[in-house]
């Protein structure tokens, strides 16, 4: 089935080559029609298929194998969301059957974590696992086990007002595989490693969990950075979608320019030294823009008057007819390119309950003071998108950068 699809893609590409040249870099939108890598020890299959509950739109899901460190006591968990916007592996406690060692602070107290996403928080113990994805393995990686009951949720973790996303019903996935630009989820700032004021890490004596600093090496880590090789970044490869599809499948490829199947090729590198690049849309410039497979749509300030949804779809766009738009991305290195995109009516797109891959889903960023354009999963359809990890060298330069 998969082979057939790739053959068809190849055939389409060959036919198209007579007209325009396959993968020829024109420097404008859709410049690289890329094929999807399907084999290699550094390749894991992914699918935009609604996830384990079949209700998650524009999310890419992968399988991850967890083992008690140094043992063959392992478990494979599917339905894990691939998120290039965060770093670190988070797994539902309810999906976990293998016993993993609890991480302890130097004073012997167990360590737990609170990580807040937009609209929800995740909470639970930090444990250690060997993490296998495709043919790659991160040994003794700190991971985040999501549970509201292993340790009582501290008030600091609920101060966002958001709901917990520590169950299948509330997360819509069995976990989150954060393979973004960051090496660790919190990082080296004093708020993370010393004072704990970032609010991510907690120590949990029997009297209750309190915020604490967490040494960099103990923080929940981007598992890719711990691979022995192919550890400088990832490629998310998904086929193009025209409007809506029930599901599409692609690949998560590890390493950039480390093997014959992960070369940059004709992709343009957009450096992002502060984990952001600049998008210009409708005459406005957004220097905090980012590419994030964990965002379900394209989110940007509504400067062009697109009708916004109300009620339960609030937060998405609901134009009467599909809007065809374009924006320009520019890296700190000066590389620049135009991206064409479309915004459809979210209420209409959601009405067909079996459609899980939506190319035209978007919504407003808070206005007027958002400094970003969020290139979520719809951006990935029909592109091979490279995410290079901070400080890692690649043939395209040192991360962090995006390339496509």
């Amino acid at each position, binding site marked *: 089935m998969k082979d057939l699809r790739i053959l068809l893609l190849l055939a389409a590409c060959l036919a198209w080559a007579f007209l325009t040249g396959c993968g020829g870099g024109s420097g404008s939108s859709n410049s690289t029609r890329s094929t999807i890598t399907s084999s290699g020890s550094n390749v894991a299959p992914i699918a935009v298929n609604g996830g384990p509950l079949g209700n998650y739109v524009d999310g890419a899901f992968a399988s991850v194998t967890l083992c008690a460190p140094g043992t063959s006591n392992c478990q494979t968990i599917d339905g894990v969301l691939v998120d290039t916007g965060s770093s670190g592996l988070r797994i539902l406690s309810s999906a976990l059957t293998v016993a993993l060692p609890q991480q302890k602070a130097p004073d012997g107290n167990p360590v737990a974590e609170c990580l807040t996403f*937009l609209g929800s928080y995740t909470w639970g113990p930090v444990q250690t696992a060997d993490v296998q994805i495709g043919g790659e393995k991160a040994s003794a990686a700190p991971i985040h086990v999501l549970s509201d009951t292993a340790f009582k949720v501290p008030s600091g973790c609920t*101060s966002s007002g958001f709901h917990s996303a520590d169950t299948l019903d509330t997360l819509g996935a069995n976990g989150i595989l954060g393979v973004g630009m960051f090496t660790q989820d919190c990082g080296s700032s004093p708020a993370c490693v010393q004072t704990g004021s970032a609010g991510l890490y907690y120590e949990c004596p029997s009297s209750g969990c309190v915020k604490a600093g967490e040494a960099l090496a103990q923080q929940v880590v981007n598992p890719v950075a711990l691979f022995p090789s192919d550890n400088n970044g990832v490629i998310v490869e998904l086929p193009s979608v025209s409007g809506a599809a029930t599901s599409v499948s692609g690949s998560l490829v590890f390493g950039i320019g480390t093997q014959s199947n992960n070369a940059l090729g004709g992709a343009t590198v957009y450096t992002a030294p502060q984990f952001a690049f600049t998008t210009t849309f409708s005459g406005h410039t957004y220097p905090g823009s980012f590419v994030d497979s964990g965002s379900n749509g394209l989110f940007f300030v509504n400067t062009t008057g697109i009708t916004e949804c109300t009620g339960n779809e*609030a937060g998405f766009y609901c134009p009467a007819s599909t809007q065809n738009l374009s924006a320009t991305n520019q890296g700190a290195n000066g590389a620049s390119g135009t991206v064409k995109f479309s915004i459809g009516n979210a209420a209409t797109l959601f009405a067909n309950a079996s459609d899980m891959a939506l190319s035209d889903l978007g919504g407003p960023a808070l206005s007027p003071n958002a400094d970003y354009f969020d290139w979520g999963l719809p951006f990935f359809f029909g592109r091979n998108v490279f995410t290079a990890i901070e400080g890692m060298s690649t043939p395209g330069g040192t991360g962090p950068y995006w390339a496509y």
Partner: protein
Amino acid sequence: MFAVTWHGPWLPDMRQILGSYFEQYRAAVQGQTTGRMARRPVMIDQPGLLIQIGGRVRAFAGRAYIPDKLPSGVRVEDIQ
């Protein structure tokens, strides 16, 4: 006080920022469901309370304001 804005790597303590409005905000933000799982910006637009939160891990921004208490002549767009 009629408006608060913030931006930073991590979300602020909304209890502290919103005070007596926190419970109204929490009920509104937790009440939004589409029947589809989706992460999206938080947009609360209720009589007496407007809150927007956007961004991502390590770069959040937001603002909250009480429309009835906006001084005359101050536009929502002026709140930066």
